[in-house]
């Protein structure tokens, strides 16, 4: 008896067909994040203009379906937005994973809402937040982009 798909369609889709998993030669903000509990790693590449708008972004590295899909969904969300907005979404995402969010907040997160169930899988939380956490760190370590 075959078992049912383990993740929902949105996650499966981003996992199998990530839009943003590639190098980004003209990135001006790059940071590597690791999940020490399994050694998974992601490198986030962002191109941020003088106004703080994320003009393009991608990720490379190796990780599980959740960490990869989550990073891909995040990039979908933040490309075109400015740094402040991206960080706001990031804090909403963390809130969703660690506690709960309101319906309107969930709406703001768009496809990232597909990761809501992760709050019930404590061992996977680090996977889900890896990309987001890396983005946060990237902005924190280099608040102004030249």
């Amino acid at each position, binding site marked *: 008896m075959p078992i049912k*798909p*383990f993740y929902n369609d949105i996650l499966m889709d981003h996992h199998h067909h990530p839009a943003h998993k590639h190098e980004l030669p003209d990135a001006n903000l790059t940071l590597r994040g690791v999940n020490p*509990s399994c*050694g*998974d*790693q992601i490198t986030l590449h962002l191109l941020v203009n003088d106004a703080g708008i994320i003009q393009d972004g991608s990720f490379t590295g*190796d990780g599980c379906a959740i960490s990869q899909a989550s990073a891909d969904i995040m990039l979908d969300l933040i490309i075109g937005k400015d740094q402040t907005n991206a960080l706001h979404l990031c804090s909403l995402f963390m809130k969703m994973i660690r506690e709960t969010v309101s319906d309107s907040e969930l709406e703001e997160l768009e496809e990232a809402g597909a990761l809501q169930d992760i709050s019930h*899988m404590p*061992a996977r939380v680090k*996977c889900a937040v890896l990309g987001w956490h890396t983005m946060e760190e990237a902005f924190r370590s280099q608040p102004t982009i030249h």
Partner: protein
Amino acid sequence: MLESPDNFRKDFPFFAQNPDLVYLDNSATSQAPSCVIDRLNRYEQLQKASPFRGLYPLSVQATDDYEHARNLVRDFIHAGSGEEIIFTRNATESLNLVAYCAGNALIHAGDEILVGITEHHSNMIPWQQMARRTGARVRYLTCSREGAFNPDDLEQSLTDRTRLVAITQMSNVFGQINDLRTLTQIAHRRNALVVADGCQSVPHIPVNVRELDVDFLAFSGHKMLGPTGIGVLYGKKDLLNRLPPFLTGGEMIEEVTTEGATWAPLPQKFEAGTVNTGGALALGEAIAYYNRVGFDAMMARESALTRRLMTGMADIPHVQIIGSPKPELHHGLVTFTIDGVHPHDVSAIMADHGIAIRAGHHCAQPLHAYLGLNATCRASLMFYNTEADVDAFLNILSEIRGAMGYAD
């Protein structure tokens, strides 16, 4: 005496408590039989007294029981003397003890330490750190893709500066047993000491330190039916005598003044502070359990289960075994990947179906890098596992690609 698996399992309350769990993470930590827990309890609840210092009967009893446990460990690995058995917290501490102490006494700037590329972080980082402190240099001994060390490679990697070889008896990724006796002979001919990691071997095969002739051997109680918090360092007596103490303080001294201190004889010299008496007694009882059941019966079970496991895995498409394809070389430990599915996802799906396996780098990140892998899955058996455990695992394994959206 060949007991049936049912006989084994009734000794382990864990299985009755967790009837729906298939526990295949035994290389991480093993379950403990009730006799071990009883012994732990008896001491901690009914006989608790500090050994060594008290003149009253309960303290004398604790001393005797603690030394009896040491002697059980001594006999289990065929050491020459109880003075060669140091109780530690875990194998990691045992290896750090040697690395810290040898770093003053035996290894100097310019010396080389040869570390197996297979090594667990606990038998690798302490040497990297020691090299940094002393000015010594760490080099690595590589293995075949199946995890075997070639004695000729060792021969060629040793230089006149090599003082120490740190190598595992059984890798926690490959499950293969290294021929430590041959490797040690080669190292000794070149005057290099051998520090062996017995974490995975001591729980699964009879180990005779005098035959292997290794200079140090580290292992953990919690992987061999004992409780958490107790480990062992075996060291040859003359070497332990040459090392300075590691942790200092109560119980390990002869005399103390404001100027300095002199040390107690072995093994107390290396056991500072109030010892983990409960843990030691429980580990002693775990060894008594090993002795009662016997390695013959345990190994027969483990090899039958490993064969069933690996035969089943070979039939499932897209499953890649790390290391040898031969079950008899795995000692119950099988590391693998599934094409297109990340090990984390494999293990999460397994967990969702009540099967406990491990995913990640298994604290052997440099080995994974060497093999060109980022992470792997590992299923590891113990004699108390059953055919049903193996079949449940194989059943889910064959479904995983499907659950991850692959058509085949």
